[in-house]
């Protein structure tokens, strides 16, 4: 550990605000990059499942149908 204390690490001789904000923005973007497609995938599967249930009885499974 280069810094002696937590406060020093946060402060970084006055540069702390810049360094930490850069890292937090990056964390935000990375989280979005990972989270957004996973959420889209879950949501899509849920939608499709609902769609299949709605059409059940009318169409056999796997048949093509209008969206």
């Amino acid at each position, binding site marked *: *550990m*280069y*810094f002696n204390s937590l406060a020093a*690490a946060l402060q*970084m*001789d*006055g*540069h*702390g605000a*810049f*360094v930490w*904000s*850069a*890292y937090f*923005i*990056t964390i935000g*973007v*990375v989280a*979005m*990059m*990972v989270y957004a*497609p*996973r959420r*889209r*995938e*879950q949501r*899509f*599967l*849920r939608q*499709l*499942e609902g769609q*299949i*249930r709605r059409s059940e009885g009318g169409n056999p*499974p*796997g048949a*093509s*149908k209008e*969206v």
Partner: protein
Amino acid sequence: MWTLFHKFGSPPWLYRLSGSILRWLLPITLLALVGGAVWGVLFTAPDFRQGNSYRIIYIHVPAAVVALAGYYVMAIAGAVSLIWRMKMADIAMRACAPIGAALTFVALVTGSIWGKPTWGTWWVWDARITSMLILLFLYLGVVALYEAYENKALAAKACAILSLVGTVNIPIIYKSVDWWYSLHQPASIKFTGGSTIDPSMLYPLLFMITAFYCLFTCALLLNMRVEILQREQRTAWVRALANKGAAG
């Protein structure tokens, strides 16, 4: 070789493969990102000229490097899609653009934040930052073109051509911007050269670059999975997956 190639063209196979890859790659990537960041921020000595603000390098440079590489990945996927008409290449190309744009955005924002303590201003028309800005434009152009086409199969082909044109142009743009900057460069502003970097700073940097490559791979696979499901939504295997997802 060819069987592997054909397997890559098979959506269910790719979907399952990406699932099993992500299961271990994603946690490792996130751990590596956190570990590398901690290493870079807390365990390295400050730069003798820029002080602690240089610690932004551990995200700025990896993001910039991977964003640039991402453009080439996109162009290669585009070439594959044009030459062999592989659907999966279309999907990979489509998935690259937003990820690359996000990474370019990170590189720009962190570069700007880095600029404030270093140069005293949020934005400097420095060669590297200007090039990153142009790269962002190139990515956004691909996204805009894709969205403008209603027929998504054609959209992918059009984007493939655009990204190939971009691949040829990027070295020219970078060189010309470099040259332009050296012509107009004020003497007081100097960037620390990458080649003179101390090993104690270099290792965490290389580590972070690797981690960002993994991040790119993960994000690419995650985005491709959604796209595969949407394109294949009428097939039996996707429907089975949806039913299973609802039951489980």
